[in-house]
C-alpha cells in the first residue's frame, strides 16, 4: 500500500464535510449533555412549624411550644393558639419569647380531645390538628406532633444537617442530667435490640448533655461513607438508662452529592448518541470517499495509476476506516475527559477499550456495507437512498421489527422471549453492537439486571460477532472490487 495516497485519502475522509459535521455534533452533544450530569447539592428544607411537648397533672395540660427557623434557631413573636375539643372546648394563646418558647396551660381534665394548634408568624398561619388520647402518665413529657430528636439545616453548610433535640424533664422542667450518644455504622448487629438500640452507652460516642428544652448538636460524621451507613442516637436518663433511641441514614445527615458513575453516563451516551451518529458518519464518509468516486467514474482516474484493483480497494477502505475510527476515538476521548472533569472519575480502561473496539466494528461494518453496495448499484442517488434506508431500519426501526417478531413468536413485551429476541437481534445489527457490549459489561438490559450468558451474550460470542461484522462486508466488497467492473 502506498503511504502518500493512503494519507491523502485518510485526510480527505476525515476532513469531509459530513464526517466533520457529525463529529462536531457528537462533541457538541457531549459538551451539552455531560455537564448536566454534574453532582447537584440540594439543601435540606428544615421544618418551620413549631414543636410542641406537654406534661399533664390531674387538672391541666402544660404545653411548651418552640418556634424556630429552618436552622433550629428560636423565633420570637410567633402567635400560638391551642385548643382541646372534647365534651367542651378549652383554648388558650400566647406568643413565643426571645428564646422561641411559648408556655401555655389548658385547664382541662384528663380525657380524650381533639387537639388543634394555630401558629401565626409574619402574617402567615400554619395549623395543625390531631385527635389524641390525652391519657399520658402524669409528669412525663409527651410529643403530640414531633419527635424529641429531629433534623435542622446547618447554618454554614447547606448540604449538612444538624441534630436538634426538644425535650423536657418531669413536669416540664428543663432537662438536666440527660445525655445523648450516637453510633455511626454500616453493619449494625441484628435485632432484637434492647431499648430500641443495638448498642449500649459504652459502645456509643457522646454527642452532648441536655441543658435546655431545645438544643442543636453537630455530630461528627466521617466523610466517604456509603449510602447505607446508619447513625444510631440514644437518649440516656441521668441514671444511665436508655430513654429513647432513633436511627437515621447517613444521607439524612450528610446530603450525599448525587454523583453518577462515569461508566453509567458513558454507557448511556455511547449506546444512544454514538450508536446513532457513528453509523451515519460511516455511511456518509464511505459514500464520499469511495461510493461517489466509483459511481461518478472519478475512481478510474486513480485506477489508471500503478496500483492493483485489490491495492486500491484496500487502501481506500483502510484510509476511510482509519479516519472514521480516529473520529470515533476522539469522541470517546472527549467524553472521557468531560466525564473526568464533571464527575471526577474517568472511564475504566477496559470499558473505554471495549467501546472503542465496538465503535471500530460499527465503523468497519457500515463502511464495508457502503463500499460493497457501491458495486451493486448504478447511480449515486440509488446508493444514497439505499444507504439512508439501511441506516433508518438498523438505527430507528430495529426495535419495532424485533418487537413484531417477538409477537409472532408468541412473546409479549417484557417477557423472557422478548428479552432474548432483543439481545439476539443485537448480533444481527452492527448499529446495536455497542448495546451488546453494554449488556455484557453491565449485565443488564434496559435497566433490568440479567445474567447475559443466559441469553447468549458472552465474550467469545461478542468477539466473533464483531469480527464477522468487521470482516465480512469488507471481503464481499473486495470480491466485487477485484472481480467486477
Amino acid at each position, binding site marked *: 500500500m502506498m503511504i502518500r495516497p493512503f494519507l491523502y485519502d485518510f485526510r480527505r475522509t476525515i476532513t469531509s464535510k459530513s464526517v466533520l459535521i457529525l463529529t462536531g455534533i457528537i462533541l457538541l452533544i457531549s459538551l451539552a449533555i455531560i455537564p448536566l450530569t454534574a453532582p447537584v447539592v440540594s439543601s435540606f428544607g428544615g421544618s418551620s412549624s413549631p414543636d410542641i411537648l406537654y406534661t399533664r397533672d390531674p387538672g391541666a395540660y402544660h404545653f411548651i411550644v418552640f418556634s424556630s427557623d429552618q436552622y433550629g434557631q428560636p423565633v420570637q413573636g410567633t402567635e400560638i393558639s391551642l385548643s382541646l375539643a372534647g365534651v367542651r372546648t378549652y383554648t388558650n394563646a400566647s406568643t413565643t419569647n426571645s428564646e422561641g418558647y411559648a408556655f401555655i396551660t389548658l385547664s382541662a381534665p384528663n380525657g380524650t380531645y381533639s387537639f388543634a394548634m394555630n401558629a401565626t408568624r409574619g402574617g402567615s398561619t400554619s395549623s395543625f390538628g390531631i385527635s389524641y388520647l390525652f391519657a399520658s402518665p402524669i409528669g412525663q413529657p409527651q410529643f403530640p406532633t414531633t419527635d424529641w430528636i429531629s433534623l435542622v439545616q446547618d447554618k454554614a453548610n447547606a448540604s449538612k444537617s444538624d441534630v436538634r433535640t426538644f425535650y423536657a424533664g418531669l413536669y416540664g422542667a428543663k432537662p438536666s442530667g440527660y445525655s445523648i450518644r450516637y453510633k455511626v455504622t454500616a453493619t449494625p448487629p441484628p435485632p432484637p435490640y434492647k431499648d430500641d438500640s443495638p448498642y449500649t452507652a459504652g459502645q456509643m460516642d457522646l454527642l452532648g448533655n441536655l441543658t435546655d428544652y431545645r438544643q442543636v448538636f453537630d455530630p461528627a460524621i466521617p466523610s466517604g461513607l456509603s449510602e447505607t451507613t446508619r447513625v444510631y442516637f440514644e437518649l440516656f436518663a441521668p441514671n444511665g438508662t436508655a430513654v429513647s433511641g432513633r436511627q437515621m441514614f447517613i444521607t439524612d445527615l450528610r446530603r450525599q452529592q448525587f454523583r453518577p458513575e462515569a461508566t453509567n453516563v458513558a454507557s448511556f451516551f455511547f449506546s444512544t448518541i454514538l450508536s446513532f451518529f457513528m453509523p451515519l458518519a460511516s455511511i456518509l464518509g464511505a459514500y464520499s470517499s469511495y461510493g461517489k468516486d466509483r459511481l461518478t467514474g*472519478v475512481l478510474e*482516474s486513480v485506477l*489508471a*495509476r*500503478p*496500483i*492493483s484493483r485489490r491495492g486500491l480497494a484496500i487502501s481506500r477502505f483502510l484510509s476511510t476506516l482509519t479516519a472514521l475510527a480516529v473520529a470515533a476515538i476522539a469522541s470517546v476521548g472527549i467524553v472521557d475527559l468531560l466525564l473526568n472533569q464533571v464527575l471526577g472519575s474517568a472511564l475504566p480502561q477496559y470499558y473505554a477499550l471495549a467501546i472503542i473496539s465496538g465503535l471500530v466494528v460499527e465503523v468497519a461494518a457500515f463502511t464495508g456495507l457502503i463500499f460493497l453496495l457501491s458495486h451493486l448499484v448504478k447511480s449515486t442517488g440509488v446508493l444514497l437512498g439505499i444507504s439512508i434506508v439501511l441506516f433508518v431500519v438498523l438505527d430507528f426501526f430495529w426495535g419495532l421489527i424485533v418487537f413484531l417478531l417477538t409477537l409472532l413468536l408468541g412473546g409479549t413485551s417484557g417477557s423472557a422471549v422478548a428479552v432474548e429476541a432483543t439481545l439476539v437481534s443485537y448480533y444481527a445489527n452492527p448499529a446495536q453492537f455497542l448495546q451488546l457490549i453494554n449488556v455484557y459489561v453491565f449485565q443488564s438490559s434496559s435497566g433490568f439486571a440479567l445474567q447475559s450468558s443466559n441469553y447468549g451474550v458472552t465474550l467469545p460470542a461478542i468477539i466473533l460477532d464483531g469480527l464477522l461484522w468487521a470482516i465480512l462486508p469488507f471481503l464481499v466488497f473486495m470480491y466485487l472490487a477485484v*472481480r467486477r*467492473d
Partner: protein
Amino acid sequence: MFSAKQGPAISSVSFDVRNGEIVGFVGLNGAGKTTTIRIAVGVSLPTSGTVLIDGHDITQEKPEASKSIGWVPEIPNFEPNAKAWKLMRYLAGFYGMDGREATKESKELLASVGLSGFENRKFRTYSQGMKKRFALAASMLSNPQNFLFDEVLNGLDPEGIQFFRQLMMGQKKVNKAILLSSHILTEVENLADRVIFIHKGKIVKTTTRDELASYASKGTILRIQLQSVTDEAISYLKALGTVQLDGNAIILSNFQGDSAQVNSELVKRGFQVREIKHERTGLEEYFFDIIRGTDTAK
C-alpha cells in the same frame, strides 16, 4: 466486457503499437474504441484476452504495466473539489515519489501543459480544454513509454488541437508509442503512421500512412445542382475532377480546388447554379467504404 443481452462490446481485437509510432484508432461512435482503450489502461476488465504493455499483462501485473501507460480519456474525470496541484501530488504518490519530488514534478508538468497560474483552482472550475490538459499532465507523471489518447481532440479550440498535435509529434520523436482514437478520420490522417479501423467491436482494416495519403489525395466530392445540365458544363467540370450524373445533379469527385471558385466560374460561363454542396472527402469515402464492406460481408 459485455452484457448478457447485448453481447461483447469488442471481440477479435488484436493489434500492437510500436515505439516511435502514432497509431490512429478510428471507428464510428459505439464501435468499441473507448472500451478497447479502457481495457488496455486497466480500468475495465476483459472477459478474455490479454493486453501486454511493454511485456506486462495489464490484468495480471497491473502496477508494473500501468507505470508504462499515460491515459487521457475523452472526458477527464478527477476529484472535482480537489485543487489541481494537490490532485497531481496525490497521483504522483502512486509512482513512489516523495513529497518534495511530487510537488516539483506536479508544478513542472502543470506548467508544461499550459496550466501555470491555475494550479490552485479546483478541478471542477476548469474548462473542458483545461481538464484535458490536466489529464495530459497527469498521464505524463511517470514519463510513460506508451500513451493512449481517447478522442482527445474533441471539444478543443484550434489552439488546443494544435497543442495536442505538437505534443504527440514531440512524443513520437522521443520514441514513444501513441494510440490516438477518433471517430473522425481526417483528425488522425496527418498524425498517424498507421490507422486501425474498428467497427462493431471488431478490427476491420489496418492501413498505412501511404495508403491513407492516396485516398486523401482523391480530394473532396462536390454535389452541383445547375438550372440545366449541359455538355458544356460537364466538359468544364471534367477538367476539375471525375464527373458522375445523379439525376439533375453532377457529382464531382477527386476535386482538389476551392468550391467558391467553381461557383464563380460556372456563373461566368452563363450557367445558373442552384447549389454547390460538399459531400465527403476521399478519406471519409474510404472510411465508409470499409464500413459498408464489413456490413455487406455479414
